[in-house]
């Protein structure tokens, strides 16, 4: 089964979404990430979406779920590298990414995570 690799960087987890996210993959990622947060006691999750040229409501909801679940587990989530066209479209679609911090780069994202822990 196709899985998105989750890397551990100190007390943070890093996920890079580079492929077209089919529904099943999104669900698997949600589960895998949640489990890894518990296993590792990670304090933060960085999701790199800089390769995504579209985020629809299903993926948007998946990202919100990930943020909510990791928050319950004591970790913060930062979305990194949302493309401008994607950001504009998400706003017009009406999808709020409330509860998820965002950053332009992985470095900035890590900084935000360090500050919040």
């Amino acid at each position, binding site marked *: 089964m196709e899985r998105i690799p989750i890397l551990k960087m100190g007390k943070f987890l890093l996920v890079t979404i580079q492929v*077209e996210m*089919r*529904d*099943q993959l999104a669900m698997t990622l949600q589960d895998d990430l949640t489990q890894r947060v518990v296993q590792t006691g990670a304090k933060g999750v960085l999701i790199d979406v800089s390769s995504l*040229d*579209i*985020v*629809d*409501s*299903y993926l*948007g*909801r998946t990202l919100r779920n990930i943020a909510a679940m990791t928050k319950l587990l004591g970790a913060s989530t930062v979305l990194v590298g949302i*493309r*401008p*066209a*994607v950001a*504009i*479209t998400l706003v*017009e*679609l*009406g*999808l709020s990414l409330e509860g998820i911090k965002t950053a332009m780069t992985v470095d900035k994202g890590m900084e935000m995570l360090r500050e919040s822990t």
Partner: protein
Amino acid sequence: MPTLKEHLITVSTSDDLAEVRQLSRSLAVEAGFSLLDQTKLVTAASELARNIVVFAGGGQVRIELIGESNRTIIRETFEDHGPGIVDLDLAMKDGYSTGDGLGLGLSGSKRLVNRFRIESKPAEGTTVVIEIAK
């Protein structure tokens, strides 16, 4: 209004959404739409095709490139013979969903395109037509 190119896609599971997105994207690129317009179209198409899968169990998506003398149009038609929508006004409200989604598919898609038309008859099915133009 000559149709320059047309794709017909049968949609039955969420795995078919990738094809809808890819073909929408490639036609929009070919027609020279801006990156933002491409992104909005593909996102709207993903939402509307997803509705077919979720609510009707399957249907068809027709993607057309139409050339008028002073305009280029991409028209996408989403057709199903599913349960139809009982209250269209309610269905078009942000946040309203009869499934477990966010309720943004119809209302959101409408905001992302230039033209949006929906027709539905309970027990017969639903047709949504969207257009972007330049």
